[in-house]
């Protein structure tokens, strides 16, 4: 009886499969793909792209002077257009295909071999094309972030060359080391959504760029106040919401870990905003809108590597720490060393990313992300995280410096004094806000 039914089942199985595949061929062709995960990751991809355009474009351009608003938006726009093509050409393949210690492979050069059915081993429940697109949006925003350090004074042609070079020599290797199976991943460095790969790399690169390009004309003497902070507030809102896709999507699935990441992310943004505002209130007598939005972004940047590893209430703590540490970096530290990191890419993203990486080492909770930090009795993780910070900081600083010096041999990276006075809008793009 048992043997008979077993034989029947054996016979029935191919018949059923054949019928099934006739009805839903796409599903049968690759049954591992999860519709839920795919739907969420499509949304998350759109959210992260929205962070750059218009999120970051508005956030940044609201903080520059009126004569540089379009020039600043052009930098975000250019990053989207340029990096997307480079990502497809070689970035994706070098970061996420092949598990070399230092770099991936060129097997997916111009997406060759990426098909309707292929998946990346890092995200087996969504189509490979979607994983590729999602990760593309991270590369885009990282490159776009750097521009804030040299706002108001970088030549557009030099910016384009810089973006190509920085993406290729800073972002691609770092992303592979941390996320693509490189040596930092092998060492156990934890970076859920980009504390090292996105924020520290952009912040450190930005700091170097600000120093190489030099301070803005009139820095410390003239009024360089923002053109329209209401744009920056709208930008912050878009970044904030987009960050749900940035951190939540980094779970690469529609699951509880994504929800935990989003919860910690939102709470960190709230705590960062409140903390920065409170500090200003106590020492400057008024909580500024710029301070509140900067605190929110600091909280978001700082929770980025930790989200997905920590509990929601840790998000609040991390946001408070972010507000305090980043405020100190944007005010005291910047004045002490007298560099003109114009839109505080280092002070907010660099310092925030670094802080978040250490916070991950402290607060990582096994029940959330499968790793334990200091609070759960694993001090070793903190050392591992320190290793990640040292490598990222060192690589980004050295590579960015060499890159800028090389570019400067061919194109002056800074606009002329006359062009700087006129503004980037008219001098670089032939347009102006009236």
């Amino acid at each position, binding site marked *: 009886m048992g043997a008979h039914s077993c034989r029947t089942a054996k016979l029935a199985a191919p018949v059923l499969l054949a019928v099934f595949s006739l009805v839903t061929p796409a599903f049968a062709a690759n049954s591992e793909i999860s519709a839920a995960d795919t739907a969420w990751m499509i949304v998350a991809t759109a959210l992260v792209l929205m962070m750059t355009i218009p999120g970051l474009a508005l956030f940044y351009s609201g903080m520059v002077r009126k004569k540089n608003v379009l020039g600043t938006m052009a930098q975000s726009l250019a990053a989207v257009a340029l990096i997307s093509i480079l990502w497809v050409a070689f970035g994706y393949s070098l970061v996420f295909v092949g598990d070399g210690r230092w770099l991936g492979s060129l097997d997916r050069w111009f997406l060759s071999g990426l098909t309707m059915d292929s998946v990346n081993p890092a995200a087996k429940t969504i189509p490979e094309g979607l994983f590729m697109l999602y990760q593309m949006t991270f590369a885009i925003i990282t490159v776009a972030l750097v521009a804030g350090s040299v706002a108001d004074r970088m030549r557009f042609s030099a910016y384009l060359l810089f973006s190509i070079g920085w993406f290729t020599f800073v972002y691609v290797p770092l992303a592979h080391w941390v996320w693509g199976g490189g040596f930092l991943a092998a060492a156990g460095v934890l970076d859920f959504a980009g504390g090292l790969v996105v924020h520290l790399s952009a912040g450190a690169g930005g700091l170097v760029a600000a120093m190489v390009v030099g301070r803005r004309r009139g820095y410390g003497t003239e*009024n*360089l106040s923002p053109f329209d902070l209401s744009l920056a507030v709208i930008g912050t809102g878009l970044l904030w919401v987009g960050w749900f896709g940035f951190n939540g999507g980094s779970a690469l699935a529609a699951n509880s870990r994504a929800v935990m990441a989003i919860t910690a992310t939102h709470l960190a943004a709230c705590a960062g905003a409140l903390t920065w505002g409170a500090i200003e209130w106590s020492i*400057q007598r008024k909580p500024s809108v*710029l301070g509140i939005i*900067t605190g929110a972004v600091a909280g978001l940047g700082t929770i980025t590597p930790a989200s997905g590893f920590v509990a929601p209430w840790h998000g609040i703590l991390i946001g408070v720490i972010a507000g305090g540490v980043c405020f100190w970096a*944007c*005010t005291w530290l910047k004045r002490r060393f007298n560099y003109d990191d114009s839109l*505080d890419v280092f*002070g907010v993203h660099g310092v925030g990313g670094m802080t978040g990486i250490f916070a991950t080492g402290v607060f990582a909770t096994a029940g959330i992300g499968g790793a334990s930090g200091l609070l759960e009795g694993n001090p070793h993780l903190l050392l591992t995280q320190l290793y990640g910070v040292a490598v990222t900081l060192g690589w980004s600083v050295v590579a960015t410096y060499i890159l800028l010096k090389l570019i400067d041999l061919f194109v002056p990276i800074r606009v002329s004094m006359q062009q700087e006075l006129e503004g980037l809008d008219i001098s670089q793009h032939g347009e102006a806000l009236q």
Partner: protein
Amino acid sequence: MKLVVAIIKPFKLDEVRQALTAIGVHGMTVTEVKGYGRQKGHTEIYRGAEYVVNFLPKLRIEIAVASDIADKAVEVITSSARTGQIGDGKIFVTPIDHALRIRTGETDSDAL
């Protein structure tokens, strides 16, 4: 004919306009201007960077009136624009040599 030029606080415009309308002044030109007087400027702080803003936003209103109501106009502008705080603004009165309405060609008091 007199040209009355008043520099006022921006949020006082509606009150001034209503007061002038009530005494029969039916035309006004308003310009957004910046300037300073005794009020001096204020300090703005952006992420720790302090900027002293010397020029404050004001409105400059211009009305052309018959000489006999110029004093009345000055009086109602004064009362409607005053807050008692420093920075309430100033009023200047100058004579008008000649006036002309472009559409009809009417001149002087007919043109007001």
